[in-house]
């Protein structure tokens, strides 16, 4: 039995003024960033004031929007979009498009600068543990993506924010950020770490109970005294900042659950990507995040769908056996391959739809070439909405 998923109406989401945030999530390599940019462009040309927040450092995306590079500040994409100047955003409907790329270190530094007095800020910014944490450690990106999203939303400068999620191990790790931070801040570890610094010396461990003392001893043994000291200085200096940080992370989390948010899962019609998409559907439901639907990118179709793979192959064999029409035989084999690929992709999607029959879905056909400019993004936008 073939199941058909309900159609995902992209324009209804983009045109609905109560939609304030669109989150694109999905496994790596499925065209998430391109989808986010195409949605942003389409929304802007339909009259919305949009900012696209990407975490993907792909310079190509910046270039496709006419910017040399993206940074931590939203940059306006130039207007245009007329037949004479297709490479620009058509602002006839009163919209505008901005784009930015998350710079996690810059974002983290800004939080510190905004929430600590100058002396303490300096102390934190020059701490070796902070420098590693803010610039290179992979988990930081999730916190900072949440933070930036919250900032953009609170600023009120845009009526629609389109964000693509970090390419982390599990692409929904950012949902765990507030809880993880909370667990850390509520945990006993932070008390161990902050205690000695507060009391002004190593002897402070003695003030704690025996269990704490042992743990502190182990930490010293494993990490070494110098690392532990850096961490302690960092954590106690950051103590004040952390509280607000966590509060905002929780706010952003609740914002994502609110009706103004639409989650779009981006996938490709392959087994792994569709399996991940299934996982995302379940995970979003678990966190009570509003799922709008699934975008399946790079779907192969044939302009001659009536000619089946089986007939095509049989005919090719027949021609080859006769030693006739070599070219036609080769073309028929090519067509058969394409029909088989299309059928396999169809099966993967049906598999998904059987498990999640109510999740709306839209397909974007595979392009022979990659997207290079706003014209290409506009075309993707059209396909998303059709």
């Amino acid at each position: 039995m073939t199941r058909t998923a309900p159609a995902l109406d992209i324009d209804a989401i983009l045109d609905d003024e109560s939609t304030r945030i669109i989150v694109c999530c999905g496994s790596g390599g499925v065209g998430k960033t391109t989808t986010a940019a195409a949605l942003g462009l389409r929304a802007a040309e339909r009259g919305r004031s949009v900012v696209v927040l990407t975490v993907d450092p792909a310079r190509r995306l910046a270039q496709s929007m006419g910017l040399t590079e993206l940074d931590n500040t939203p940059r306006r994409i130039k207007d245009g979009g007329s037949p004479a100047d297709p490479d620009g955003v058509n602002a006839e409907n009163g919209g505008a498009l901005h784009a930015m790329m998350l710079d996690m270190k810059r974002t983290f530094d800004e939080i510190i600068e905004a929430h600590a007095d100058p002396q303490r800020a300096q102390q934190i910014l020059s701490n070796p543990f902070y420098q590693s944490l803010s610039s290179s450690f992979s988990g930081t990106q999730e916190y900072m993506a949440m933070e930036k999203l919250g900032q953009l939303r609170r600023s009120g400068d845009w009526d629609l924010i389109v964000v693509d999620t970090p390419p982390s191990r599990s692409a929904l790790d950012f949902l765990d950020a507030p809880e993880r931070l909370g667990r850390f801040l509520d945990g006993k570890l932070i008390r161990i770490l902050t205690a000695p610094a507060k009391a002004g010396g190593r002897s402070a461990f003695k003030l704690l109970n025996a269990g704490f003392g042992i743990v502190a001893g182990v930490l010293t043994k494993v990490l070494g005294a110098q690392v532990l000291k850096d961490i302690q200085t960092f954590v106690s200096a950051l103590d004040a900042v952390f509280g607000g940080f966590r509060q905002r992370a929780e706010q952003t989390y609740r914002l994502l659950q609110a009706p103004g948010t639409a989650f779009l899962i981006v996938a490709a019609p392959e087994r792994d990507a569709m399996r991940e998409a299934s996982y995302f559907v379940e995970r979003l439901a678990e966190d009570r995040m509003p799922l709008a639907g699934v975008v399946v990118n790079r779907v192969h179709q044939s302009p001659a769908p009536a000619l089946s793979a089986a007939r095509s192959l049989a005919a090719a064999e027949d021609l080859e056996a006769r030693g006739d029409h070599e070219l036609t035989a080769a073309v028929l084999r090519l067509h058969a391959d394409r029909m088989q690929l299309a059928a396999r992709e169809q099966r993967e999607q049906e598999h998904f739809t059987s498990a999640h029959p109510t999740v709306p879905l839209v397909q974007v056909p595979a392009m022979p070439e990659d997207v290079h400019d706003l014209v290409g993004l506009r075309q993707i936008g059209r396909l998303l909405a059709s």
Partner: protein
Amino acid sequence: MSGPTGGKNAARDTDWEGVRLHVVTGKGGTGKTTVAAALALALAAGNRKVLLVEVEGRQGIAQVFELPPLPYEERKIAVAPGGGDVYALAMDPEEAMLDYLEMFYGIKRMGKALTRMGVIDFATTIAPGLRDVLVTGKTSEAVRRRDKSGKRVYDAIVMDAPPTGRIARFLNVTQEVAGLARVGPVKNHADMVRGVVASPETAVHFVTLLEEMPVQETLDGIAELRTAKLPVGGVFINMVRPTGLPEAVLEAASANRFDNSELALGLKAAGLADGKADASLIADALAQEISEHACRTELERRERETLEGAGVPLYDLPLLAGGADLAGLYELAEAIHTRGVA
């Protein structure tokens, strides 16, 4: 040169003789885990023992081998054609941390207390750089491990590593940790890991498709590894499709000079069309397919040229007609063997 397990396996003439740690990276969607699994099978052939390590906790190896989720334990999961064992280890940073404490400090019993106090949580999630050190550390330990008689336990280790965008940072643990620990046990551990990862016994292979973004990321990744003085291996070009059509036809299609009438005649001859009008209708549709195919082929040719500029061996792996199932995995292992990788 024969493998460390002694004379039972014949000498091999492969491109990566002497490499014991094969790190496999690739952009999402390129088939990195599948290629890592096939490489492990190919390396195990000839009665060897290979460990396949998963570092990202996604249970990708279990899925590729069509097995239930794997525990944090070295467990035999497959037999290579003609004999040879593939073991798998699904890395779990928390378990690796407890292992590490046990191995170096004999304090595994502390584990529970540390977990309760959030120390393990902190080390493995809040400070994920430490997590990378633990994961690469556990892998390095397996590379160096010897049995009681002094023989290597594994002939080779294959690591299904993080994606291309993160690989240099992931492997470059010394630098990561240097900002944090200039002296002390963590630094010593990181130095040990660096010793293994940067040695000539390690090779970092890339998996790519002939598409613009994965190729660009591969080149960036190679450059980053070279800067970090980490050993670059080969590039697996995955899902390569046969060209299928003669060069002249592709050229004509690219230039919009393709002659549909010959195709229409062929379709009629094959009995696929009712009459002339129908034949030319189908021919037009198929011509569009050919033109898209020609465009794709041209793009793939350009991307291959770009890859050739990197100066590393390229290995073509075929697109699996039946998808990446277990049978396909063995097919890929065979291809990897034929190309002289293992």
